[in-house]
């Protein structure tokens, strides 16, 4: 199969959905001739014109709020917030308005919008351009949160998100934009709220999100040489997430490592650990549930400090070995 990058896969999903459905349009800062801060929307302005690829002023609140208003009245907007850090400026509109509209109005309205935003560290952009804030959105009923780790998933999940009738926060990984993988040329969907076992194994379950899926798979390949078979589960959708696939894997392996880049305290991993502890997999655990996550610090600028602020492949390998010490 043809291989394209994660960024190209997202662009292809946008293009194909815009071709299919005239209600889909894009709005955000510098997404037109500039192509977006990471070049994801390059070429779409030329193909679809300024009416459907709309550069906005630096106004995150109204980007999110107008997307919700347009969605409420029959459109399917895909808004872009240039860095996930800047979703803080749109929180009122996302959390109080878009997420609540349907329930608050008795289930008689729908808000089919997508908010795309790049997250994560590793680019030397320091504390205000590097965060992974997905857990905040996972905490909000009415929002869906999607976080793809491969080009294939990025395209299929984005098409599902655009066709979904709810507000979806689509978290893209800056460090994955240039990674390549097989992606079918035709449109296809990857269903929301369905996890995928990215690598099967019998000894340890790693539940990882975003770029940590890639690091976990690299770690798993090395651990296999030591005879440790790691199963890597990627939830792909963080809200509502697929507890069943995770539970099934944990029952099989009895050892759990959760890996994400976001801050550890009250991160998505805390939810997964609690879900496992409360659920049927608990009785199958051979070791304490282990979390590897970002340190509870603002992302530092210095290259070495930044590297050590979030989990790396070697940390995952060490953590798995430690889990294997439990018999």
């Amino acid at each position, binding site marked *: 199969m043809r291989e394209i990058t994660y960024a190209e896969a997202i662009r292809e999903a946008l293009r194909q959905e815009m071709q299919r459905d005239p209600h889909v349009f894009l709005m955000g800062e510098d997404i037109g001739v500039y192509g977006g801060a990471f070049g994801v929307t390059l070429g779409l302005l030329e193909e679809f014109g300024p009416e459907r690829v709309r550069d906005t002023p630096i106004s995150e609140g*109204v980007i999110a709020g107008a997307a919700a208003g347009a969605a409420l009245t029959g459109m399917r907007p895909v808004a872009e917030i240039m860095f996930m850090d800047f979703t803080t400026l749109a929180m009122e509109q996302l959390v109080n*308005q878009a997420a609540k509209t*349907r*329930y608050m109005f008795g289930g008689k309205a729908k808000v089919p919008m997508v908010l795309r935003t790049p997250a994560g560290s590793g680019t030397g952009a320091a504390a205000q351009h590097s965060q992974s804030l997905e857990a905040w959105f996972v905490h909000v009923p009415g929002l*869906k949160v999607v976080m793809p780790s491969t080009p294939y998933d990025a395209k299929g999940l984005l098409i599902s998100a655009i066709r979904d009738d709810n507000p979806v926060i689509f978290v893209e990984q800056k460090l994955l934009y240039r990674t390549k993988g097989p992606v079918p040329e035709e449109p296809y969907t990857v269903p929301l709220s369905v996890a995928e076992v990215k690598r099967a194994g019998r000894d340890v379950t790693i539940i990882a999100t975003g770029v940590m899926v890639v690091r976990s798979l690299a770690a798993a390949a090395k651990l296999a040489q030591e005879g440790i078979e790691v199963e890597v589960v990627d939830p792909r959708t963080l809200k509502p997430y697929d507890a069943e696939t995770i539970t099934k894997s944990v029952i099989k392996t009895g050892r759990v490592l959760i890996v994400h880049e976001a801050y550890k305290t009250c991160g998505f991993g805390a939810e997964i650990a609690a879900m496992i502890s409360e659920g049927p997999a608990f009785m199958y655990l051979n070791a304490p549930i282990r979390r590897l996550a970002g340190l509870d610090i603002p992302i530092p600028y210095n290259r070495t400090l930044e590297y050590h602020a979030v989990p790396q492949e070697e940390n995952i390998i060490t953590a798995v070995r430690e889990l294997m010490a439990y018999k």
Partner: protein
Amino acid sequence: MDGAGQLTKEKLIDMLRKMHTIRAFEEKADQLFALGKVHGTMHLSIGMEATAVGAIAALRPDDYITSTHRGHGHCIAKGGDVKLMMAEFLGKETGYCRGRGGSMHIADVESGNLGATGVVGGGIPTAVGAALSVQLRKTGQVVLCFFGDGAANMGIFHESLNLAAIWKLPVVFVCENNQYAMSMPVARAFPIENIADRAAAYAMPGKVVDGNDVLAVYAAVAEAVDRARAGEGPSLIECKTYRWKGHSKSDQERYRTREEVAAWKKKDPIARFEAYLLQEGLLTEEQRQAIAKEAQERIEEAVAFAESSPEPRVEEISEGVYA
């Protein structure tokens, strides 16, 4: 009062009927609260009926509105069913929002009422997005966006008016300046005399009207609606009015005097409109009394409907979070 020239007698009488219905709804809401029959809070718009009715009278039935926490009047003026409103107010399954929204979140998206929001200024970008949707779908609709003086000091006010202006969106921003953001008077919250002056920053028309003169509100909004529908972009209209009741039920009204409230009550928008209609021979005293009485009866029927309606079922508590 003038500006009635474009309005038929039937339309004028309908406007008066709606103003009476709003007054009767709000008075009944106040009474039900005092009787302990209401679970939550509410924000009454008594004294502000001319703004809601005058502005919405300038719309086509398929146009949109966005409302505020003080939104009962907007819903009634848009043609909302007071039975479904009262049921929502009492938290019943038959209410507009199945009892999930309450006083602050009454919506009827199908009839163009995009709903009331409890966050000050929160509905302004919703209106901008709806106007963008209208522009993209080329339906010729207009969006009327209500907000208060307090909302005009939110950052989202600036973001929204600017975006609407640069994209020439068919939206009319109607600021209901009722003199107080909770307890903060406009004189202390604004360095300018008129909120409408801010329109200049967005190169859109800005107009101040007497918000207690239903025909003045109508005339100003109708002009802005025509402009919006013609593709010429948004306008900002400031309606200077006054809420007779406190901000909400927690309000002890320590920030204003009885004399001030009494002075505004003398500018009662309903009495003024009636005096005009009587003087012009468009209304008789008998009709006036009948309209007021019918409004009371409609509200009594609404209360009876709401009180006899079922409560939402606990088993259905999680319905409607996701589509």
